């Protein structure tokens, strides 16, 4: 189910602007990998290169290799649509489809990709909502619009929507930055459960969160504003937060940055 990601020599551009440069790392399957680093250092850009969402932005292009269990995502003949079905994504701001009910939101990925029987869909929707710890809160109002939920519930709805298509990898771009501590806790618990089944990569600005949820942590940094972001180091989370091998990481984590 879960897959390993090997990135080598990845450089991403927006037009002529180089956003990240020469990044190589390995993301282990069935684990949580956290990306930390200052704003603008290219964490989100790097995350979006992992399911070819980067190229959706006008001018976005990539050099280098991203291997998903040995298959290069950027090889010719690879369909980005299939890549995104395999590598799901949850965004910073909850973005349920406003025209769809809660049920339809979760079923969207399946329904828009093929036809399913009603009973089958209902089963998958229930499983996904349970997987996202949202089932008990919404089971009586599955036909109400998804945008009527609270922010935390909407974000869990988006997670349910993402896991309903059974991806191999789940990318999360600051999934808790718009949420209160209680909703954040719910999502962090959820991440702990989801890593049994998926490979999870999470971008976060919250160092405690990275320490709490992740097995491995990658620290990104940029030399100066306008310079491309680079991977400083990636290691076991415990090591990064107790005894990092690079001075810059320690400075950033302890708040002595810049």
């Amino acid at each position, binding site marked *: 189910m879960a897959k390993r990601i090997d990135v080598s020599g990845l450089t991403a551009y927006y037009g002529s602007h180089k956003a990240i440069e020469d990044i190589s790392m390995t993301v282990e399957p069935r684990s949580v990998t956290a990306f930390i680093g200052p704003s603008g250092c290219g964490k989100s850009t790097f995350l979006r290169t992992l399911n070819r*969402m980067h190229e*959706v932005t*006008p001018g976005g292009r990539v050099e280098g290799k991203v291997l998903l269990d040995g298959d290069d995502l950027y090889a010719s003949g690879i369909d980005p649509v299939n890549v995104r079905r395999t590598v799901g994504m949850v965004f910073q701001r909850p973005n349920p*489809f406003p*025209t769809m009910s809660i049920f339809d939101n979760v079923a969207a990925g399946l329904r*828009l*990709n093929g036809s399913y029987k009603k009973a089958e869909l209902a089963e998958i929707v229930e499983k996904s909502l349970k997987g996202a710890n949202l089932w008990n809160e919404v089971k009586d109002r599955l036909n109400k*619009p998804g945008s009527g939920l609270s922010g935390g519930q909407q974000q869990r709805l988006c997670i349910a*929507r993402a896991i309903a298509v059974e991806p191999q990898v789940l990318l999360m771009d600051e999934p808790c930055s718009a949420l209160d501590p209680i909703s954040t806790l719910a999502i962090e618990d959820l991440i702990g459960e989801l890593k049994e089944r998926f490979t999870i990569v999470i971008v976060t600005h919250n160092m405690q969160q990275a320490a709490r949820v992740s097995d491995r942590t990658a620290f990104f940094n940029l030399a100066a504003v306008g310079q491309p972001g680079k991977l400083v180091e990636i290691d076991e989370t415990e090591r990064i937060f107790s005894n990092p091998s690079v001075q810059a990481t320690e400075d950033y984590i302890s708040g002595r940055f810049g």
Partner: protein
Amino acid sequence: MSTTAPTAQAVTPDTLRAPRLPRWASPLVALGSAAAAVGVGLGTGLHSRVQWGLIAALLFVVASYVLATVVEGKRQAKDRFATSMVWMTFLLAVIPLASLIWETVERGSKVFSPYFLSHSMGVVADREVGGGINHAIIGTLQQVALASLIAVPIGLLTAIYLVEYGRGKLAKAVTFFVDVMTGIPSIVAGLFVLSFWILILGFDFSGWAGAMALSILMMPVVVRSTEEMLKLVPNELREASLALGVPKWRTILKVVLPTAIGGITTGVMLAVARIAGETAPVLLLVWVNPFINTNPFDGAQGSLPLYIYQQYAAGSEASYDRAWAAALALIGFIMILNLVARGIARWKAPKTGR
């Protein structure tokens, strides 16, 4: 202590209270200025009600400004001045509209009846009483429907191309030509189809020829309004859909368009309303036919704007009445279209309820 640097004390008021005019002051001033205007008008022998109204407006603006300056202070007075100016301009804009509708209803209701709607002018001479607009309604409905059938799909697809796909030179050129098309006078569109379809290709006058000219006028309006609506759809929704592995065309069809459908419908309806009242191209291309012709592809047809023009030009008492009644029918038709559009927009709008 007293010699320290200046503090915010200087601008902080001693009390949060401020004198306010009572709520009934504004209506009272309005009433007073209206009465004064009537007095001035009668006293100086001004006959025009427009002059009375202008005097009343001027008095109201000045009086409320002075009163507010005395009681409430300068800042509040400026606020009241701006508010009263906004109200005055609002009234100025509404008066022509209200008087137009009043005039049309008053004069048009004389002969407006089920008989009028269900009969044509086939055997009625222009100076005779009787007859109706059935042939014109059929003509207008068919011409507008045909024009929409051409313009709406092309307009929608152009807007989708511009917002979702268009990059670089081609998109810029398309945008430019849409802008140019917006500015085409309706008579020019009519002349274009006249010279191309009727004079060069040799076809006869018909509803279809008029519909082609109308569609030229409608297309840029549809493109512009749809473009704006599609731009309002947040990018996050597109990304959410793409990230689920949904192909781009399905994302547009199933996520982007449904989110914007309310606004798009309103835009299309407004474009329909715009062309339903066009006279010039219809005059050139549909010609006039007092008989009912239900085939828009063969021969001259009637049309509401044309009927109004032609009946008014005929110049008899009976034809004046018919022209006004037809104008009433045209306004009613456009109003119904607008209401339907609003209904659809409300019904289809993204719901936020719990």
